[in-house]
């Protein structure tokens, strides 16, 4: 490895040609998406400008759920003996972090949109409530990841908590649904959106998914570097510890 390439990889430590291409595609997509979402698409007849928030809201919600599904699957993969690898654990953690971010965005944009369309920031609708619970649950998951211990201790503990959260979600969802059966009408399903609006939404989902993949890849590599650094610290600490011995 030459000095110049080392320099290069230090400057872009978690990037590869593939992620760079992905990143560029995401950026172009985002520019396009913002242009459509903010300027090119028309106002909705009923929701007026409020519909532009939906272009953010729906893709973030989709991504948050996708992220939590990925967390659950990677946690299960870590716990299974055949596929036990810290890579799964880091993927679960990275995905949960990105998921929490997108879920926060979902709640924020949702309440702003609600203020415009319903006149209130918050309604105790079942979907909103479940989402809020999910948000808090995954904040708890991230806190559990930070509890310390060796890498495998962290991995096992957080994987178990992630799977327990999966157990919890349907229970919360059904009880809340049953508690408040009233639904706000779905804005997409009732066919009021024009073709261009639907197209903007579609672009949003695609671009946000690309962004998710980029974020998770980088975050996961960052976590791997962190773990590797800890391991090096351990090698060093063992040597240092052995030096201590004066018999």
């Amino acid at each position, binding site marked *: 490895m030459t000095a110049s390439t080392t320099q290069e990889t230090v400057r872009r430590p978690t990037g590869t040609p593939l992620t760079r291409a992905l990143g560029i595609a995401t950026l172009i997509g985002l520019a396009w998406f913002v242009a459509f979402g903010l300027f090119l698409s028309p106002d909705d007849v009923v929701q007026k400008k409020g519909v532009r928030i939906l272009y*953010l809201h729906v893709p973030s919600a989709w991504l948050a759920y996708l992220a939590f599904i990925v967390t659950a699957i990677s946690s299960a993969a870590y716990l299974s003996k055949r596929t036990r690898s810290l890579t799964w654990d880091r993927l679960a953690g990275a995905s949960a972090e990105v998921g929490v971010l997108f879920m926060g965005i979902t709640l924020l944009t949702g309440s702003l*949109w609600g203020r415009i369309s319903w006149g209130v920031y918050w309604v105790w609708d079942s979907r909103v409530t479940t989402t809020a619970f999910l948000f808090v649950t995954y904040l708890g998951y991230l806190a559990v990841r930070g509890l310390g211990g060796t890498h495998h201790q962290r991995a096992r503990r957080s994987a178990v908590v992630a799977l327990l959260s999966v157990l919890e979600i349907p229970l919360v969802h059904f009880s809340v649904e049953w508690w408040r059966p009233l639904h706000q009408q779905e804005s997409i399903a009732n066919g009021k959106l024009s073709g261009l609006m639907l197209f903007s939404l579609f672009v949003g989902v695609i671009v946000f998914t690309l962004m998710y993949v980029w974020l998770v890849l980088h975050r996961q590599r*960052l976590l791997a570097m962190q773990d*590797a*650094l800890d391991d090096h610290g351990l090698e060093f600490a063992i040597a240092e510890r052995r030096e201590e011995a004066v018999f």
Partner: protein
Amino acid sequence: MEIRFVVISYIATFGGIGVLVAVMLRRARALAQRLPPEDRPWT
């Protein structure tokens, strides 16, 4: 009011993601200084 809310949404969303990306990349660069390249098998 609507315009204001729309703008807030867009700024918050992309601002939030932007901050995460900036923090991540800065942290990655700091770590890379202290790690040999073989710990980054993807490069």
